């Protein structure tokens, strides 16, 4: 099937198999490396991307369902060489260790702030339920989300 997608501000047209998962499309066809595959069962969140403004797990969608959609991945967050506030916060607060969950974690964190610019710690932790990190114990990630929210509020 022919699909057209808009990914990180660029348009793509490809002929894809109907069964091709969005994550495989992004990684294998478009050539991105940010969205990761941690489980293929929508449980770990490493593949989280933004689709038409909403965070989705790209391992649980077919590429054809993204036909016509606007997709933002971690690669599309920085603009003009300047990191997004959430990326900067993850760096400052040591929100990444091995880094494998990090792109999905940052996309989910950005979504938390997009929906609620001033979340409580509980709301942040609830918002991150769909993303697993095995390295950090989440504390520095939660700190990063708080810091990004604070930076955005300034």
């Amino acid at each position, binding site marked *: 099937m022919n699909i057209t997608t808009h990914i990180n501000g660029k348009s793509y047209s490809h002929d894809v198999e109907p069964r091709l998962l969005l994550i495989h499309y992004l990684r294998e066809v478009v050539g991105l490396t940010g969205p990761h595959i941690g489980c293929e069962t929508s449980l770990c969140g490493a593949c989280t991307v933004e689709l038409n403004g909403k965070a989705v797990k790209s391992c649980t969608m077919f590429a054809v369902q993204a036909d016509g959609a606007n997709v933002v991945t971690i690669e599309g967050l920085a603009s003009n060489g300047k990191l997004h506030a959430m990326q900067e916060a993850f760096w400052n607060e040591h929100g990444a260790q091995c*880094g494998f969950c990090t792109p999905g974690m940052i996309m989910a964190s950005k979504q938390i702030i997009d929906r609620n610019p001033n979340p409580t710690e509980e709301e942040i932790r609830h918002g991150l339920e769909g993303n697993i990190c095995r390295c950090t114990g989440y504390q520095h990630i939660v700190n990063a989300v708080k810091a990004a929210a604070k930076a955005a509020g300034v």
Partner: protein
Amino acid sequence: MATTITKPETLVGKRIRRREDPRLITGTATYVDDIKMPGMHYATIVRSPHAAARIRSINTKKAAAHKGVIAVFTGKDTQKVGPVPCGASLPGLRVPHHHILAMDRVYFAGHPVAVVVATDRYVAADAADLIEVDWDVLPAVADPEKALAKGAPAVHPEWPDNVAFNYHQEGGNVEKAFSEADVVVKQRITSQRLIPTAMETRGVVADWRPADRQLNLYSSTQIPHLMRTLVAQMLGLEENRLRVVAPEVGGGFGSKLNVYAEEALMGFVAMKIQQPVKWIESRRENFLCTIHGRGHVDHYEVAAKRDGTILGIKLHIIQDLGAYHQLLTPAIPTLSVLMMPGLYKTQNVRADIVGVFTNCVPTDAYRGAGRPEATHGIERMVDVLAAELKMDPAEIRLKNFVTKEQFPFPTATGLTYDSGDYAAPLKKALDIVDYQNLRNEQAQARKQGKLMGIGMSTYGEICAFGPSPATPAGGWESATVKIDPTGKVTVMTGASPHGQGEETTFAQIAADELGVNIDDILVLHGDTAVVQYGIGTFGSRSTAVGGTAVYFALQDLKAKIKKFGAMLLGSDDVSFSGGQVICNKTGKSKSIQEIAAASYRAMKLPPNTEPGLISTHFWEPPNFTFPFGAHIVVTDVDRDTGAVAVRRYVAVDDCGNILNPLIVDGQIHGGVAQGLGQALWEQAVYDDNGQLVTGELMDYAVPKAHMMPRIESDHTTTPTSVNPLGVKGVGEAGTIGCSPAVVNSVVDALAPLGVKHLDMPMTPETIWKLIARSKS
């Protein structure tokens, strides 16, 4: 021209953000699955659905004929490759031959039996479904205690008792200690099987260059050099023809401190098809086929005086090994024995281990590797003893600690504890929680029928592996530091960090020692074609051993810099500081950049002087290090649901000197999360047929953000004398300190109901049943 500014400020000890992060937060890091090569094929592995079965036949015809499939291999094709290596040796150890693909029999669910190679990962998966295996299913045994029972199915028919080894160690006079005891407490304590669950599963890309007789192997591993040696042997390839690259590695926790069948298998495939091949483990495979951790059933006896003085400890360990020995499988429980006295001065110990085969995936090193089991055991037993004697758990610990005057302290298990002040972190933690008030609050809560618990653990761990005689592969680590003609510094470490932040901490060390800007330093690791031979990252060793190798390489290099500087300044009376060699008489100086340039131009060198600025150091540690600490956990147990809520988690850890507090905090938090996972939620459950019931993230409960408490982390600092950095290691501390503190807290909460012990994981169901039983 960009110049390096001399900076007097030191970086070691500073909370600076990591230098590896820009690629991680922008999604541009290269993990194995990000590697693409022209002509690359994909492999899917067909695995046994049965825990024990004979293979009558395998029909690969349909799969081989499937469009896009270029090869199918089974055990017959690969029988000359391997075996999968076991690096541990124990007297009388039974080592089953571990083929990379099953021959005529499988031993655990997930055992690889065939590999399908195709142009695309979807096609490979389609074709794998077309492989027909005619199974003769056999009885399996998945529980180590059941495997020891008479009449149990034999995992390996040649050893019907399922015993892989018996191990005995003792020190002091245990019988005398027990005969003099006022009280002996006994408890069966389990440390359940856990699944390491690195967020990046394993993966391998193999690229064979026949014209060069060169195999390039990209693997998500913690030990690229050891892998090169071992996989070269498995493939019958000269070691210098194999290059192993650990690219970005998405977590390991010990599960990638191994050499697996798939690494040699992909090498074999690439050499056969003469094209690059990629295999990426699915999460399901990761649960089924990557090593598990723990798997202990321990029987403890502790003898003591009525005043709480511990006289002796007896320990019998039943270790669930799984079906095979992976790299270190049988060695792991021997670490538990080494650490069985914990922080206590008793000199009378006896331990026996029986290593048991089961029809499960092998156990091996998982964060802490033998030490969490030991700490869990002794820290539970001290609480059991305190309860028996009606003593306060803090008081009984303080009474039995090795005192700070006693270091270096020889233990009953043959170790020498390097340095410590074990009371200090406990007292600090007690202060932080305001212990006496907390106990008063608990007394009030109990009057109201509330289940509030206060639990502590005071852990010690054996880290910085280690002196080579005690470490199967050698315990040293290597470093090369070189300075280019323009003065830029490259550090190459034999350690293989994968999240621990050594690209930052090693750069901090080098920046301080050389007096150069940290931005002028690059830290490389993980590529056997780039980095001198090394051991790897595990056992909380990278900074304490690898960082020390960097330190000594820098000392050699500084001597060279000084020598060249003296030559340029025409004076022997020089000193080196702040990136400058300074003539002590004239005050004239030469910068490191000027000296580097001159060293490569090699003009007017004195005789017998080697040009260039490079130094390599292999550092052999004289001892392990022994970090320690105290964790206190306050819990509330819900009477109606059995749910445990962690109200406070206070961790006071002493890992010696701290190079970067931000990174150390991260290690503690992550370690505690894995300890809390074990205490409350995680367990690899096999049913009686050897099927892994918790085979997906849906069923295996790793902690998520909302399940974790905020950890209050603090430190005491007792430097080690084992290395000049004074660092002890921190990677496993959180995990080791955590689980007994949590269990002690919940047992304390349930003490009014008569509960004296709980095994992990303490799920709401388990606790609810206990509460329900206490009512009836």
